[in-house]
Protein backbone atom coordinates (compact mmCIF):
# COMPACT_ATOMS: atom_id res chain seq x y z
CA UNK A 1 0.00 0.00 0.00
CA UNK A 2 2.88 2.34 0.84
CA UNK A 3 4.35 1.76 -2.62
CA UNK A 4 1.03 2.70 -4.20
CA UNK A 5 0.91 5.82 -2.06
CA UNK A 6 4.42 6.67 -3.23
CA UNK A 7 3.39 6.14 -6.82
CA UNK A 8 0.30 8.30 -6.37
CA UNK A 9 2.54 11.10 -5.07
CA UNK A 10 4.87 10.59 -8.06
CA UNK A 11 1.93 10.80 -10.46
CA UNK A 12 0.64 13.90 -8.72
CA UNK A 13 4.03 15.47 -9.13
CA UNK A 14 3.99 14.69 -12.86
CA UNK A 15 1.02 16.92 -13.56
CA UNK A 16 1.82 19.29 -10.74
CA UNK A 17 0.74 22.42 -12.61
CA UNK A 18 -2.66 20.96 -13.50
CA UNK A 19 -3.16 19.37 -10.11
CA UNK A 20 -2.20 22.62 -8.46
CA UNK A 21 -4.77 24.42 -10.61
CA UNK A 22 -7.47 21.97 -9.55
CA UNK A 23 -6.31 22.20 -5.95
CA UNK A 24 -6.58 26.00 -6.10
CA UNK A 25 -10.04 25.97 -7.68
CA UNK A 26 -11.22 23.43 -5.16
CA UNK A 27 -9.76 25.51 -2.33
CA UNK A 28 -11.59 28.59 -3.59
CA UNK A 29 -14.89 26.66 -3.86
CA UNK A 30 -14.49 25.29 -0.32
CA UNK A 31 -13.25 28.66 0.93
CA UNK A 32 -16.31 30.55 -0.31
CA UNK A 33 -18.76 27.87 0.76
CA UNK A 34 -16.98 27.49 4.10
CA UNK A 35 -16.93 31.26 4.68
CA UNK A 36 -20.63 31.60 3.94
CA UNK A 37 -21.45 28.71 6.25
CA UNK A 38 -19.13 29.94 9.01
CA UNK A 39 -20.80 33.35 8.86
CA UNK A 40 -24.32 31.94 8.82
CA UNK A 41 -23.47 29.57 11.68
CA UNK A 42 -22.11 32.48 13.64
CA UNK A 43 -25.22 34.57 13.02
CA UNK A 44 -27.45 31.61 13.84
CA UNK A 45 -25.64 30.96 17.09
CA UNK A 46 -25.80 34.61 18.04
CA UNK A 47 -29.51 34.73 17.25
CA UNK A 48 -30.21 31.64 19.30
CA UNK A 49 -28.20 32.85 22.28
CA UNK A 50 -29.87 36.25 22.05
CA UNK A 51 -33.31 34.68 21.84
CA UNK A 52 -32.58 32.38 24.73
CA UNK A 53 -31.65 35.38 26.80
CA UNK A 54 -34.87 37.23 25.98
CA UNK A 55 -37.96 37.46 28.15
CA UNK A 56 -41.02 35.48 27.11
CA UNK A 57 -43.11 38.58 26.34
CA UNK A 58 -42.24 42.23 25.78
CA UNK A 59 -44.98 44.83 26.16
CA UNK A 60 -44.66 48.25 24.55
CA UNK A 61 -47.14 51.14 24.70
CA UNK A 62 -48.54 52.67 21.54
CA UNK A 63 -49.90 56.20 21.16
CA UNK A 64 -51.18 57.38 17.83
CA UNK A 65 -49.51 54.45 16.12
CA UNK A 66 -46.05 55.17 17.50
CA UNK A 67 -44.14 53.54 20.32
CA UNK A 68 -43.99 55.71 23.44
CA UNK A 69 -42.66 55.20 26.95
CA UNK A 70 -44.69 52.85 29.11
CA UNK A 71 -46.11 53.88 32.52
CA UNK A 72 -44.31 52.07 35.32
CA UNK A 73 -47.63 51.33 37.03
CA UNK A 74 -48.38 48.80 34.29
CA UNK A 75 -45.81 46.59 35.99
CA UNK A 76 -48.10 46.09 39.03
CA UNK A 77 -51.14 45.67 36.83
CA UNK A 78 -49.43 42.92 34.86
CA UNK A 79 -48.31 41.11 37.98
CA UNK A 80 -51.99 40.70 38.85
CA UNK A 81 -52.63 38.79 35.63
CA UNK A 82 -52.57 35.06 36.29
CA UNK A 83 -49.82 33.25 34.41
CA UNK A 84 -47.26 36.06 34.64
CA UNK A 85 -44.61 35.10 37.15
CA UNK A 86 -42.24 38.08 36.77
CA UNK A 87 -42.36 41.56 35.29
CA UNK A 88 -39.42 43.87 34.70
CA UNK A 89 -39.42 47.46 33.52
CA UNK A 90 -36.65 48.09 30.99
CA UNK A 91 -34.86 51.28 30.14
CA UNK A 92 -33.11 51.36 26.79
CA UNK A 93 -32.98 53.24 23.52
CA UNK A 94 -30.76 54.23 20.64
CA UNK A 95 -28.56 57.16 21.42
CA UNK A 96 -27.42 59.36 18.56
CA UNK A 97 -23.89 60.73 18.72
CA UNK A 98 -23.98 64.10 17.05
CA UNK A 99 -20.42 64.62 15.91
CA UNK A 100 -19.46 61.25 14.49
CA UNK A 101 -23.10 60.76 13.41
CA UNK A 102 -23.66 57.30 14.70
CA UNK A 103 -26.09 55.67 17.06
CA UNK A 104 -25.67 52.98 19.70
CA UNK A 105 -28.07 51.09 21.89
CA UNK A 106 -28.09 52.22 25.52
CA UNK A 107 -29.41 49.66 27.99
CA UNK A 108 -30.06 50.41 31.65
CA UNK A 109 -29.34 47.75 34.26
CA UNK A 110 -30.74 47.52 37.76
CA UNK A 111 -28.32 45.87 40.17
CA UNK A 112 -30.92 45.41 42.87
CA UNK A 113 -33.62 43.75 40.84
CA UNK A 114 -33.63 40.39 39.10
CA UNK A 115 -33.48 40.72 35.36
CA UNK A 116 -35.19 38.47 32.82
CA UNK A 117 -32.35 38.86 30.34
CA UNK A 118 -29.80 36.07 30.83
CA UNK A 119 -27.04 38.03 29.13
CA UNK A 120 -27.57 40.86 31.59
CA UNK A 121 -27.60 38.39 34.49
CA UNK A 122 -24.18 37.11 33.41
CA UNK A 123 -22.92 40.63 32.98
CA UNK A 124 -24.04 41.73 36.44
CA UNK A 125 -22.44 38.69 38.05
CA UNK A 126 -19.02 39.83 36.85
CA UNK A 127 -19.37 43.40 38.13
CA UNK A 128 -18.08 44.82 41.39
CA UNK A 129 -21.29 46.74 42.11
CA UNK A 130 -19.90 49.08 44.75
CA UNK A 131 -17.07 50.12 42.43
CA UNK A 132 -19.42 50.46 39.47
CA UNK A 133 -21.66 52.81 41.44
CA UNK A 134 -18.80 54.97 42.76
CA UNK A 135 -19.11 57.16 39.70
CA UNK A 136 -20.74 57.10 36.28
CA UNK A 137 -19.47 53.97 34.57
CA UNK A 138 -20.45 52.21 31.38
CA UNK A 139 -19.82 48.77 29.96
CA UNK A 140 -19.56 48.75 26.20
CA UNK A 141 -19.65 46.18 23.40
CA UNK A 142 -16.43 45.67 21.49
CA UNK A 143 -17.78 47.53 18.48
CA UNK A 144 -18.56 50.60 20.60
CA UNK A 145 -15.14 50.38 22.19
CA UNK A 146 -13.51 50.46 18.75
CA UNK A 147 -15.69 53.40 17.80
CA UNK A 148 -14.65 55.39 20.87
CA UNK A 149 -11.01 54.42 20.44
CA UNK A 150 -11.17 55.68 16.88
CA UNK A 151 -12.35 59.09 18.12
CA UNK A 152 -9.74 58.93 20.93
CA UNK A 153 -12.16 58.62 23.85
CA UNK A 154 -9.99 56.23 25.80
CA UNK A 155 -11.18 56.85 29.38
CA UNK A 156 -14.58 58.51 29.29
CA UNK A 157 -17.21 60.06 27.08
CA UNK A 158 -19.38 63.06 27.74
CA UNK A 159 -23.01 62.36 26.91
CA UNK A 160 -25.52 65.08 26.08
CA UNK A 161 -28.97 64.20 27.47
CA UNK A 162 -32.09 65.97 26.08
CA UNK A 163 -31.77 68.68 28.77
CA UNK A 164 -28.36 69.59 27.19
CA UNK A 165 -26.44 69.04 30.40
CA UNK A 166 -23.14 67.21 30.22
CA UNK A 167 -22.80 63.75 31.75
CA UNK A 168 -19.30 62.35 31.92
CA UNK A 169 -19.33 58.53 31.85
CA UNK A 170 -16.20 56.42 32.37
CA UNK A 171 -15.43 53.12 30.70
CA UNK A 172 -15.67 50.24 33.13
CA UNK A 173 -14.95 47.30 30.82
CA UNK A 174 -15.96 45.79 27.53
CA UNK A 175 -18.95 43.52 27.33
CA UNK A 176 -17.80 39.99 26.47
CA UNK A 177 -20.20 37.66 24.78
CA UNK A 178 -19.69 34.44 22.83
CA UNK A 179 -20.66 36.32 19.72
CA UNK A 180 -20.53 40.00 19.19
CA UNK A 181 -22.80 40.52 16.23
CA UNK A 182 -25.83 41.77 18.13
CA UNK A 183 -24.25 43.09 21.31
CA UNK A 184 -21.39 44.86 19.63
CA UNK A 185 -23.21 48.22 19.46
CA UNK A 186 -24.53 48.18 23.03
CA UNK A 187 -23.66 50.42 25.98
CA UNK A 188 -24.72 49.27 29.45
CA UNK A 189 -25.33 51.88 32.14
CA UNK A 190 -26.87 52.01 35.55
CA UNK A 191 -30.65 52.29 35.07
CA UNK A 192 -30.82 55.79 36.57
CA UNK A 193 -28.03 57.06 34.39
CA UNK A 194 -29.57 55.46 31.30
CA UNK A 195 -32.90 57.13 32.15
CA UNK A 196 -31.17 60.52 32.37
CA UNK A 197 -29.20 60.16 29.14
CA UNK A 198 -32.20 58.83 27.20
CA UNK A 199 -34.51 61.45 28.73
CA UNK A 200 -37.07 59.02 30.08
CA UNK A 201 -39.24 60.65 32.72
CA UNK A 202 -39.65 59.23 36.22
CA UNK A 203 -42.66 56.92 36.40
CA UNK A 204 -42.05 55.72 32.87
CA UNK A 205 -40.01 52.96 31.37
CA UNK A 206 -39.18 51.96 27.78
CA UNK A 207 -41.09 48.69 27.89
CA UNK A 208 -41.91 45.73 30.12
CA UNK A 209 -40.42 42.23 29.99
CA UNK A 210 -42.59 39.42 31.31
CA UNK A 211 -41.82 35.87 32.32
CA UNK A 212 -44.49 33.21 31.82
CA UNK A 213 -43.87 30.15 33.92
CA UNK A 214 -46.03 27.80 31.89
CA UNK A 215 -45.03 28.38 28.26
CA UNK A 216 -48.28 26.73 27.08
CA UNK A 217 -50.18 29.68 28.55
CA UNK A 218 -48.24 32.21 26.48
CA UNK A 219 -51.01 32.77 23.95
CA UNK A 220 -53.63 33.05 26.67
CA UNK A 221 -51.58 35.66 28.56
CA UNK A 222 -51.05 37.55 25.33
CA UNK A 223 -54.82 37.77 24.81
CA UNK A 224 -55.36 38.89 28.42
CA UNK A 225 -52.78 41.65 27.92
CA UNK A 226 -54.47 42.90 24.74
CA UNK A 227 -57.85 42.96 26.46
CA UNK A 228 -56.58 44.75 29.58
CA UNK A 229 -54.26 47.18 27.76
CA UNK A 230 -55.65 47.83 24.27
CA UNK A 231 -52.91 50.39 23.49
CA UNK A 232 -50.13 47.87 23.95
CA UNK A 233 -48.03 45.95 21.52
CA UNK A 234 -47.26 42.40 22.66
CA UNK A 235 -44.08 40.88 21.34
CA UNK A 236 -43.41 37.23 22.13
CA UNK A 237 -40.11 35.41 21.84
CA UNK A 238 -41.46 33.79 18.69
CA UNK A 239 -42.18 37.23 17.18
CA UNK A 240 -38.56 38.22 17.81
CA UNK A 241 -37.37 34.98 16.27
CA UNK A 242 -39.46 35.73 13.16
CA UNK A 243 -38.09 39.26 13.02
CA UNK A 244 -34.48 38.11 13.10
CA UNK A 245 -35.15 35.28 10.68
CA UNK A 246 -36.66 37.77 8.22
CA UNK A 247 -33.76 40.12 8.75
CA UNK A 248 -31.30 37.45 7.61
CA UNK A 249 -33.58 35.56 5.22
CA UNK A 250 -32.80 37.63 2.16
CA UNK A 251 -29.19 36.68 2.62
CA UNK A 252 -30.25 33.16 1.74
CA UNK A 253 -30.83 34.45 -1.80
CA UNK A 254 -27.31 35.83 -1.90
CA UNK A 255 -26.07 32.56 -0.55
CA UNK A 256 -27.91 30.66 -3.29
CA UNK A 257 -26.33 32.81 -6.00
CA UNK A 258 -22.90 32.20 -4.49
CA UNK A 259 -23.65 28.53 -4.17
CA UNK A 260 -24.70 28.21 -7.84
CA UNK A 261 -21.52 29.98 -8.93
CA UNK A 262 -19.62 27.53 -6.76
CA UNK A 263 -21.56 24.63 -8.15
CA UNK A 264 -20.81 25.51 -11.78
CA UNK A 265 -17.18 26.15 -10.95
CA UNK A 266 -17.09 22.78 -9.35
CA UNK A 267 -18.64 21.18 -12.44
CA UNK A 268 -15.93 22.81 -14.50
CA UNK A 269 -13.29 21.35 -12.22
CA UNK A 270 -14.79 17.91 -12.60
CA UNK A 271 -15.08 18.28 -16.35
CA UNK A 272 -11.47 19.43 -16.52
CA UNK A 273 -10.28 16.54 -14.40
CA UNK A 274 -12.39 14.17 -16.49
CA UNK A 275 -10.78 15.43 -19.70
CA UNK A 276 -7.27 15.05 -18.35
CA UNK A 277 -8.00 11.49 -17.37
CA UNK A 278 -9.39 10.57 -20.76
CA UNK A 279 -6.97 12.32 -23.06
CA UNK A 280 -3.67 12.21 -21.27
CA UNK A 281 -3.76 9.24 -19.03
CA UNK A 282 -5.18 6.56 -21.31
CA UNK A 283 -1.77 5.48 -22.66
CA UNK A 284 -0.23 5.59 -19.22
CA UNK A 285 -2.99 3.46 -17.77
CA UNK A 286 -2.43 0.97 -20.63
CA UNK A 287 1.29 0.99 -19.85
CA UNK A 288 0.58 0.23 -16.20
CA UNK A 289 -1.69 -2.63 -17.27
CA UNK A 290 1.09 -4.02 -19.50
CA UNK A 291 3.48 -3.83 -16.52
CA UNK A 292 1.14 -6.04 -14.53
CA UNK A 293 -0.94 -3.52 -12.62
CA UNK A 294 -4.40 -4.83 -11.82
CA UNK A 295 -7.51 -2.70 -12.40
CA UNK A 296 -7.90 -2.42 -8.63
CA UNK A 297 -4.26 -1.26 -8.28
CA UNK A 298 -4.78 1.51 -10.82
CA UNK A 299 -8.04 2.62 -9.24
CA UNK A 300 -6.42 2.63 -5.79
CA UNK A 301 -3.55 4.79 -7.04
CA UNK A 302 -5.90 7.17 -8.85
CA UNK A 303 -8.12 7.35 -5.76
CA UNK A 304 -5.11 8.30 -3.65
CA UNK A 305 -4.15 10.87 -6.27
CA UNK A 306 -7.60 12.44 -6.36
CA UNK A 307 -7.92 12.23 -2.59
CA UNK A 308 -4.68 14.14 -2.05
CA UNK A 309 -5.84 16.94 -4.35
CA UNK A 310 -9.39 16.99 -3.00
CA UNK A 311 -8.48 16.68 0.67
CA UNK A 312 -5.69 19.23 0.25
CA UNK A 313 -8.06 21.66 -1.45
CA UNK A 314 -10.67 21.02 1.22
CA UNK A 315 -8.27 21.62 4.11
CA UNK A 316 -6.80 24.73 2.51
CA UNK A 317 -10.30 26.07 1.80
CA UNK A 318 -11.58 25.38 5.30
CA UNK A 319 -8.52 26.86 6.97
CA UNK A 320 -8.70 29.87 4.66
CA UNK A 321 -12.40 30.35 5.47
CA UNK A 322 -11.72 29.95 9.18
CA UNK A 323 -9.03 32.64 9.23
CA UNK A 324 -11.00 34.85 6.84
CA UNK A 325 -14.12 34.83 9.03
CA UNK A 326 -12.73 34.61 12.54
CA UNK A 327 -9.38 36.36 12.21
CA UNK A 328 -10.05 38.96 9.51
CA UNK A 329 -13.77 39.28 10.27
CA UNK A 330 -14.88 38.37 6.72
CA UNK A 331 -14.39 41.59 4.73
CA UNK A 332 -16.83 41.87 1.75
CA UNK A 333 -18.92 38.86 2.75
CA UNK A 334 -19.71 40.49 6.09
CA UNK A 335 -21.24 43.44 4.26
CA UNK A 336 -23.38 41.09 2.19
CA UNK A 337 -24.61 39.20 5.22
CA UNK A 338 -24.98 41.93 7.79
CA UNK A 339 -25.73 44.82 5.47
CA UNK A 340 -23.51 47.87 4.94
CA UNK A 341 -25.17 50.05 7.53
CA UNK A 342 -27.14 47.64 9.65
CA UNK A 343 -24.49 48.13 12.29
CA UNK A 344 -22.61 51.31 12.73
CA UNK A 345 -19.73 49.43 14.28
CA UNK A 346 -17.70 46.44 13.22
CA UNK A 347 -19.41 43.35 14.56
CA UNK A 348 -17.21 40.34 15.18
CA UNK A 349 -18.25 36.82 14.27
CA UNK A 350 -18.25 34.48 17.23
CA UNK A 351 -16.19 31.33 16.86
CA UNK A 352 -18.32 28.33 15.89
CA UNK A 353 -16.76 25.05 14.78
CA UNK A 354 -19.51 22.71 13.74
CA UNK A 355 -18.16 19.25 12.84
CA UNK A 356 -21.41 18.41 11.04
CA UNK A 357 -20.95 21.41 8.80
CA UNK A 358 -17.36 20.41 8.01
CA UNK A 359 -18.54 16.90 7.16
CA UNK A 360 -21.33 18.40 5.03
CA UNK A 361 -18.85 20.42 2.93
CA UNK A 362 -16.59 17.36 2.65
CA UNK A 363 -19.52 15.25 1.45
CA UNK A 364 -20.77 17.68 -1.18
CA UNK A 365 -17.36 18.66 -2.54
CA UNK A 366 -14.71 16.00 -1.91
CA UNK A 367 -16.72 12.79 -2.26
CA UNK A 368 -18.35 13.71 -5.63
CA UNK A 369 -14.97 14.92 -6.87
CA UNK A 370 -13.29 11.60 -6.07
CA UNK A 371 -16.19 9.58 -7.46
CA UNK A 372 -16.36 11.47 -10.74
CA UNK A 373 -12.61 11.22 -11.19
CA UNK A 374 -12.58 7.51 -10.39
CA UNK A 375 -15.30 6.65 -12.86
CA UNK A 376 -13.32 7.35 -16.09
CA UNK A 377 -10.25 5.65 -14.62
CA UNK A 378 -12.35 2.60 -13.88
CA UNK A 379 -13.66 2.60 -17.46
CA UNK A 380 -10.22 3.18 -18.94
CA UNK A 381 -8.52 0.53 -16.90
CA UNK A 382 -10.96 -2.02 -18.29
CA UNK A 383 -10.22 -1.15 -21.91
CA UNK A 384 -7.82 -3.20 -23.95
CA UNK A 385 -4.18 -2.25 -23.24
CA UNK A 386 -3.40 -3.66 -26.68
CA UNK A 387 -4.23 -0.18 -28.03
CA UNK A 388 -0.83 0.99 -26.83
CA UNK A 389 0.93 -1.89 -28.57
CA UNK A 390 -0.53 -1.26 -31.98
Amino acid sequence: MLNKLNLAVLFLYRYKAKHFGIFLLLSVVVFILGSVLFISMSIKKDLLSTLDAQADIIVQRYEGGRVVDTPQKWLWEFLNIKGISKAEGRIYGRHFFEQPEDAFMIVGIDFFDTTLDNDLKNLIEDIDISKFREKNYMIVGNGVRKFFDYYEYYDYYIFRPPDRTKVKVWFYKNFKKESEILSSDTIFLDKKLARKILGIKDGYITDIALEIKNKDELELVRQKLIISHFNSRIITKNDIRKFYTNLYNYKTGVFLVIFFILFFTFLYILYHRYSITYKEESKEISLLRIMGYKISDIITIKLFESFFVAAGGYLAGILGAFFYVYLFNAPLLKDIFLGFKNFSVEPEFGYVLDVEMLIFIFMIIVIPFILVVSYPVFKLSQTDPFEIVK
Partner: protein
Amino acid sequence: MIKLKKVYKKYNDIVILEDINIDIKQNEFILLDGVSGSGKSTILSIIAGILKPTSGEVLYMGENIVSYSDYFLSDYRQNIVSFIPQNFYFFENLTLKENISIPLHVKDINYKEIEKKVTYLLDKYQLLKYQNIKISALSGGQRQRAVIVRALVNDAKIILCDEPTSNLDKKNKDIFLEILLKLKEEGKTLVVASHDSSFYNLDFIDKDIKIDDGKIVE
Protein backbone atom coordinates in the same frame (compact mmCIF):
# COMPACT_ATOMS: atom_id res chain seq x y z
CA MET B 1 7.93 -23.01 -21.57
CA ILE B 2 5.25 -21.35 -23.70
CA LYS B 3 3.23 -23.03 -26.38
CA LEU B 4 0.80 -21.44 -28.78
CA LYS B 5 -1.56 -24.10 -30.10
CA LYS B 6 -3.90 -23.46 -33.04
CA VAL B 7 -4.22 -19.79 -32.16
CA TYR B 8 -6.70 -17.76 -34.20
CA LYS B 9 -7.48 -14.09 -33.82
CA LYS B 10 -10.27 -12.24 -35.56
CA TYR B 11 -11.33 -8.59 -35.48
CA ASN B 12 -14.81 -7.99 -36.84
CA ASP B 13 -14.64 -11.09 -39.05
CA ILE B 14 -11.21 -10.09 -40.37
CA VAL B 15 -8.72 -12.84 -39.68
CA ILE B 16 -5.58 -11.41 -38.08
CA LEU B 17 -3.94 -14.67 -37.02
CA GLU B 18 -4.61 -18.11 -38.43
CA ASP B 19 -3.51 -21.43 -37.01
CA ILE B 20 -0.45 -20.16 -35.12
CA ASN B 21 1.59 -22.90 -33.47
CA ILE B 22 4.78 -21.87 -31.73
CA ASP B 23 6.79 -23.74 -29.12
CA ILE B 24 9.06 -21.47 -27.07
CA LYS B 25 11.54 -23.25 -24.85
CA GLN B 26 13.33 -21.77 -21.87
CA ASN B 27 16.34 -19.60 -22.75
CA GLU B 28 15.44 -19.58 -26.44
CA PHE B 29 15.71 -16.52 -28.66
CA ILE B 30 12.81 -16.42 -31.08
CA LEU B 31 12.58 -13.95 -33.93
CA LEU B 32 9.16 -13.24 -35.37
CA ASP B 33 9.96 -11.92 -38.78
CA GLY B 34 7.45 -10.29 -41.08
CA VAL B 35 6.34 -7.08 -42.69
CA SER B 36 4.27 -4.48 -40.88
CA GLY B 37 0.70 -5.66 -40.34
CA SER B 38 1.60 -9.32 -40.65
CA GLY B 39 0.43 -10.05 -37.09
CA LYS B 40 3.74 -10.12 -35.16
CA SER B 41 2.62 -7.60 -32.51
CA THR B 42 -0.64 -9.49 -32.08
CA ILE B 43 1.29 -12.71 -31.36
CA LEU B 44 3.46 -10.90 -28.78
CA SER B 45 0.35 -9.42 -27.14
CA ILE B 46 -1.25 -12.84 -26.93
CA ILE B 47 1.90 -14.30 -25.33
CA ALA B 48 1.93 -11.36 -22.88
CA GLY B 49 -1.71 -11.99 -21.93
CA ILE B 50 -2.65 -8.52 -23.10
CA LEU B 51 -4.86 -9.89 -25.84
CA LYS B 52 -6.95 -13.03 -25.82
CA PRO B 53 -7.07 -15.18 -28.94
CA THR B 54 -10.41 -15.85 -30.59
CA SER B 55 -9.62 -19.54 -30.33
CA GLY B 56 -6.69 -21.75 -29.48
CA GLU B 57 -4.49 -22.20 -26.44
CA VAL B 58 -1.56 -20.35 -24.94
CA LEU B 59 0.15 -22.68 -22.52
CA TYR B 60 2.61 -21.43 -19.93
CA MET B 61 4.21 -24.32 -18.07
CA GLY B 62 1.31 -26.42 -19.28
CA GLU B 63 -1.40 -24.05 -18.06
CA ASN B 64 -3.67 -22.35 -20.53
CA ILE B 65 -3.40 -18.64 -19.72
CA VAL B 66 -6.32 -17.86 -22.04
CA SER B 67 -8.63 -19.07 -19.29
CA TYR B 68 -6.95 -16.83 -16.70
CA SER B 69 -8.95 -13.98 -15.27
CA ASP B 70 -7.65 -10.47 -15.71
CA TYR B 71 -6.47 -10.60 -12.09
CA PHE B 72 -4.18 -13.60 -12.69
CA LEU B 73 -3.04 -12.30 -16.08
CA SER B 74 -1.87 -9.16 -14.28
CA ASP B 75 0.18 -11.35 -11.93
CA TYR B 76 1.54 -13.21 -14.96
CA ARG B 77 2.66 -9.91 -16.56
CA GLN B 78 4.02 -8.73 -13.25
CA ASN B 79 6.25 -11.73 -12.62
CA ILE B 80 6.70 -13.85 -15.74
CA VAL B 81 6.73 -11.73 -18.90
CA SER B 82 7.90 -8.24 -19.67
CA PHE B 83 6.59 -6.55 -22.76
CA ILE B 84 8.55 -3.80 -24.51
CA PRO B 85 6.16 -1.88 -26.79
CA GLN B 86 7.37 -0.49 -30.08
CA ASN B 87 7.55 3.18 -29.11
CA PHE B 88 9.21 2.69 -25.70
CA TYR B 89 6.39 4.42 -23.80
CA PHE B 90 7.52 6.12 -20.62
CA PHE B 91 6.05 8.48 -18.07
CA GLU B 92 7.73 11.44 -19.69
CA ASN B 93 7.56 13.87 -16.74
CA LEU B 94 9.30 11.47 -14.39
CA THR B 95 13.01 10.84 -13.99
CA LEU B 96 14.74 7.75 -15.32
CA LYS B 97 14.93 6.21 -11.85
CA GLU B 98 11.27 6.85 -11.13
CA ASN B 99 10.27 5.30 -14.47
CA ILE B 100 12.36 2.19 -13.85
CA SER B 101 10.88 1.73 -10.38
CA ILE B 102 7.23 1.81 -11.53
CA PRO B 103 6.88 -1.97 -12.19
CA LEU B 104 8.06 -2.57 -8.60
CA HIS B 105 5.59 -0.23 -6.90
CA VAL B 106 2.83 -2.78 -7.38
CA LYS B 107 4.83 -5.46 -5.58
CA ASP B 108 4.99 -6.04 -1.89
CA ILE B 109 8.58 -4.92 -1.43
CA ASN B 110 9.94 -2.05 0.57
CA TYR B 111 11.35 1.19 -0.73
CA LYS B 112 14.96 0.28 0.07
CA GLU B 113 14.73 -2.91 -1.96
CA ILE B 114 13.25 -1.00 -4.88
CA GLU B 115 16.06 1.53 -4.65
CA LYS B 116 18.71 -1.20 -4.47
CA LYS B 117 17.35 -3.11 -7.44
CA VAL B 118 16.91 -0.05 -9.65
CA THR B 119 20.36 1.30 -8.80
CA TYR B 120 21.97 -2.07 -9.55
CA LEU B 121 20.35 -2.35 -12.98
CA LEU B 122 20.98 1.26 -13.93
CA ASP B 123 24.63 0.77 -13.03
CA LYS B 124 24.81 -2.46 -15.02
CA TYR B 125 23.48 -0.75 -18.14
CA GLN B 126 25.60 2.41 -17.69
CA LEU B 127 22.62 4.61 -16.90
CA LEU B 128 23.25 5.39 -13.25
CA LYS B 129 24.55 8.90 -13.88
CA TYR B 130 21.27 9.76 -15.65
CA GLN B 131 19.06 8.40 -12.89
CA ASN B 132 17.75 11.78 -11.78
CA ILE B 133 17.32 13.19 -15.26
CA LYS B 134 13.85 13.37 -16.78
CA ILE B 135 13.31 10.53 -19.19
CA SER B 136 12.28 12.96 -21.91
CA ALA B 137 15.80 14.45 -21.84
CA LEU B 138 17.50 11.14 -22.66
CA SER B 139 18.77 10.22 -26.13
CA GLY B 140 17.22 7.45 -28.24
CA GLY B 141 19.96 4.99 -27.28
CA GLN B 142 19.64 5.79 -23.59
CA ARG B 143 15.85 5.40 -23.75
CA GLN B 144 16.32 2.04 -25.46
CA ARG B 145 18.58 0.80 -22.67
CA ALA B 146 16.16 2.28 -20.14
CA VAL B 147 13.27 0.31 -21.58
CA ILE B 148 15.35 -2.87 -21.26
CA VAL B 149 16.14 -2.04 -17.64
CA ARG B 150 12.44 -1.44 -16.95
CA ALA B 151 11.63 -4.82 -18.51
CA LEU B 152 14.23 -6.54 -16.33
CA VAL B 153 13.48 -4.85 -13.04
CA ASN B 154 10.71 -7.29 -12.14
CA ASP B 155 12.92 -10.34 -12.85
CA ALA B 156 10.75 -11.49 -15.76
CA LYS B 157 11.67 -14.83 -17.28
CA ILE B 158 10.41 -13.92 -20.75
CA ILE B 159 11.18 -10.66 -22.54
CA LEU B 160 8.95 -9.70 -25.44
CA CYS B 161 10.20 -6.93 -27.75
CA ASP B 162 8.11 -5.33 -30.47
CA GLU B 163 10.23 -3.75 -33.23
CA PRO B 164 12.91 -2.75 -30.73
CA THR B 165 15.37 -1.35 -33.27
CA SER B 166 13.01 0.51 -35.57
CA ASN B 167 14.04 3.98 -34.37
CA LEU B 168 17.73 3.35 -33.70
CA ASP B 169 20.88 4.16 -35.64
CA LYS B 170 23.49 1.53 -36.52
CA LYS B 171 25.59 2.10 -33.41
CA ASN B 172 22.67 1.84 -31.03
CA LYS B 173 21.31 -1.18 -32.86
CA ASP B 174 24.63 -2.97 -32.30
CA ILE B 175 24.56 -2.06 -28.60
CA PHE B 176 21.02 -3.37 -28.35
CA LEU B 177 21.88 -6.66 -30.04
CA GLU B 178 24.74 -7.09 -27.60
CA ILE B 179 22.35 -6.52 -24.72
CA LEU B 180 20.00 -9.16 -26.11
CA LEU B 181 22.85 -11.61 -26.38
CA LYS B 182 23.82 -10.94 -22.75
CA LEU B 183 20.23 -11.46 -21.65
CA LYS B 184 20.17 -14.80 -23.41
CA GLU B 185 23.44 -15.73 -21.71
CA GLU B 186 21.85 -14.82 -18.38
CA GLY B 187 19.10 -17.33 -19.04
CA LYS B 188 16.28 -15.12 -20.24
CA THR B 189 13.82 -16.26 -22.89
CA LEU B 190 13.47 -13.68 -25.64
CA VAL B 191 10.82 -13.21 -28.31
CA VAL B 192 11.51 -10.35 -30.70
CA ALA B 193 9.14 -9.20 -33.43
CA SER B 194 11.03 -7.33 -36.13
CA HIS B 195 11.57 -6.98 -39.84
CA ASP B 196 14.95 -5.32 -39.30
CA SER B 197 17.67 -7.04 -41.33
CA SER B 198 20.11 -6.54 -38.45
CA PHE B 199 18.58 -9.63 -36.85
CA TYR B 200 19.14 -11.87 -39.86
CA ASN B 201 21.84 -14.51 -39.58
CA LEU B 202 22.60 -13.75 -35.91
CA ASP B 203 24.06 -16.96 -34.55
CA PHE B 204 22.31 -16.68 -31.17
CA ILE B 205 18.80 -16.73 -32.67
CA ASP B 206 17.32 -20.15 -32.06
CA LYS B 207 14.21 -19.85 -34.23
CA ASP B 208 13.38 -17.43 -37.02
CA ILE B 209 9.64 -17.65 -37.56
CA LYS B 210 8.39 -15.96 -40.71
CA ILE B 211 4.90 -14.49 -40.44
CA ASP B 212 2.93 -13.41 -43.45
CA ASP B 213 -0.66 -12.26 -43.45
CA GLY B 214 -1.30 -13.79 -40.03
CA LYS B 215 0.16 -17.18 -40.87
CA ILE B 216 3.45 -18.88 -40.19
CA VAL B 217 5.06 -19.43 -43.54
CA GLU B 218 8.36 -21.07 -42.55
